[in-house]
């Protein structure tokens, strides 16, 4: 992907939208997900304004921007979690591997199995550690028998880097773990159903620096298998974990580009102002 950066960097979305252009390189080759002309409304209020962006395979893309800029709202379009919000309406074309995910015929249940989500606050079920991870495979029927289920749980916990810490207490409640462990448990729960994309909504905002570092390491490892979209408030975190960074401002996608480039050489004034700490 990095090879394409130079060519793509010259492309803007001018052709798609006249009033505002996204600076940088929102589009990639062979994307996992594509988003075109996405608008989100809460009642009469427009929260996301004509966003166009691709999500590549095996990349970590960070979404940054000041509070209320719409980055979380956009994230939740990607697995249709916005459906659960009363009065929320999404228009535009969102595709996962070419499949229109807002199509009426698309079932959100398998969609959410393919696009997993990790939330801001660790939210393990008030059940045992084992049951937390096994819940997804169970409802989707991914395991034929107990042994397979055990295997999935072990593999997921290992991938989430939690196995060594919890392998002796799988039957204990997941809510009894520390905050960082709980968040890794939630990641294990999400990857237990083998998704293609993992959405992370400020996964470290409730954690201390050590737990945060652990999660960031994990994100780097997970990139080998999944596309990861991470919303974060911390520019440092975005710089550390992501390959690409997207900057949102008041519902507009202002700039997308390789993370190094966006942080060292922002092309849009708003991006520069935000990164240099003039607001945010």
């Amino acid at each position, binding site marked *: 992907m990095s090879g394409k950066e130079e060519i793509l960097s010259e492309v803007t979305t001018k052709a798609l939208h006249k009033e505002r252009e996204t600076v940088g390189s929102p589009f990639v080759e062979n994307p996992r997900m594509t988003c075109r002309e996405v608008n989100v409304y809460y009642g009469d209020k427009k929260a996301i304004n004509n966003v166009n962006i691709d999500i590549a395979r095996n990349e970590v893309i960070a979404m940054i921007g000041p509070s209320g800029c719409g980055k979380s709202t956009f994230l939740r379009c990607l*697995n249709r*979690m916005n459906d*659960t919000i*009363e009065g929320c309406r999404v228009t535009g074309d969102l595709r996962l591997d070419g499949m229109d995910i807002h199509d009426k015929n698309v079932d*959100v*249940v*398998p*969609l*959410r*199995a393919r696009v*997993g*989500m*990790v*939330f801001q*606050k660790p*939210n*393990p*079920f*008030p059940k045992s550690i084992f049951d937390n991870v096994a*819940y*997804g495979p169970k*409802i*989707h029927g991914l395991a034929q028998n107990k042994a397979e289920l055990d295997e999935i749980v072990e593999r997921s916990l290992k991938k989430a880097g939690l196995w060594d810490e919890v392998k002796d207490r799988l039957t204990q409640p997941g*809510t009894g773990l520390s905050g960082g462990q709980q968040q890794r448990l*939630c990641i294990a*729960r*999400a990857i*237990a*159903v083998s998704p293609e994309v993992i959405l992370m909504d400020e996964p470290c905002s409730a954690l201390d620096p050590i737990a945060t570092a652990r999660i960031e390491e994990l994100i780097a490892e997970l990139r080998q298998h999944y596309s990861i979209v991470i919303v974060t408030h911390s520019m440092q975190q975005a710089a550390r974990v992501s390959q690409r960074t997207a900057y949102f401002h008041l519902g507009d996608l202002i700039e997308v580009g390789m993370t190094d480039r966006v942080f060292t050489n922002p092309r849009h004034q708003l991006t520069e102002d935000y990164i240099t700490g003039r607001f945010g």
Partner: protein
Amino acid sequence: MDQPEKNPTIDKVNRGLKRRYRAERRFRILGATAILTALCFLFLLFFSIVSSGYKAFEKTFIQIEVFFDPAEFTNENLAAANFPGLIKASMNSMFPEVTSRKDKKDLYYLISPGASFQLMKQVKNNPALIGQKELIWVAANDDVDMLLKGNIDRTRPESERRISDKQLGWLDTLAHDGKIKKTFNTAFFTSGDSREPELAGIWGATCGSFYTLLITLSLSFPIGVAAAVYLEEFAPKNRWTDIIEVNINNLAAVPSIVYGLLGLAVFINFFGMPRSTPLVGGLVLTLMTLPIIIIASRASLKSVPPSIREAALGIGASKMQMVAHHVLPLALPGMLTGTIIGMAHALGETAPLLMVGMVAFIVDIPHGFTDPATVLPVQIYLWADSPERAFVAKTSAAIMVLLAFLFLMNAAAVLLRKRFEIKW
């Protein structure tokens, strides 16, 4: 800023400080007084009930020697035998000096009319008794019971007490011979209603309450929970659901007699269900408790954190799975608490049952949902209205039993909550 020792803000704060603390102290004292007053009234209530009711848990018996005269048992039907006659005969043999008709009547009066039924039962269970002489403890009349418990004052003039001087003499003789005893009143817990206070018991009413509440519980809990889950999780939020919500809240405040009238019109007059049965009573109480359960269930559904719902949806659970696997188990303790409080409410209700004919004199213990039955609070109401003085103690004793049941139910609610509550 220039003169740090003079900070006008702090001065202002300090000036108001005293007033703020005074207000807080006042509020605390007010609260403590309120609690104390409530406790005082509660204590008074318990004291008055227990002090007048505890005596009902004892019962007086008189020992008589009965000769089961074979001449009386000529008929096939044992019940046709003259059992009162047997008792009269044994009383006569105990007090041969009593001869006048009026005195004899006064003498027989000492023994409860229930004694002959007791003898009948004994003979039925053991026909070999016929022809035997047996020493048998039989229940004393309620007035004798009251006298021995000190509720009738011996020092009053004869005309002002229900036990005459002669009867006092006989009783003293019996007591001297050790033929009077007081034991725990098991009949109170095992028999149905009766017009004789010494025979009356609460088992019939307890069974009636049980059957009635069983119907109420088995209908109102699933329906109430289902309604709450639908309204809270599935129903669209629009004007119709708002109207439904307002109506449910209103229904919870409707006087319970209205449900009785509704039950009379719908279940009895329209569906033709039998009057005075736990079936109809249970249905009426179901209508009454439904809003309570729905409101409690919705509140406990609302208190389930949205993060759990998101977590479930986030890994692809369907809405039904989210509710059944995650939300419902978390909301259940609250729902159960609401249900038990609703049930306790139903257990103490008389007004709606009046309309469907459950305020009735029923002696036979109900054995099903369509047997005529009454319930505990109705039994209390009926006894409180009875002229016989001994029913005063029975009333209080029945209230104690009802309170015990209510206490148990509320304790169960607390326990369930403690047991199943999941902390985050």
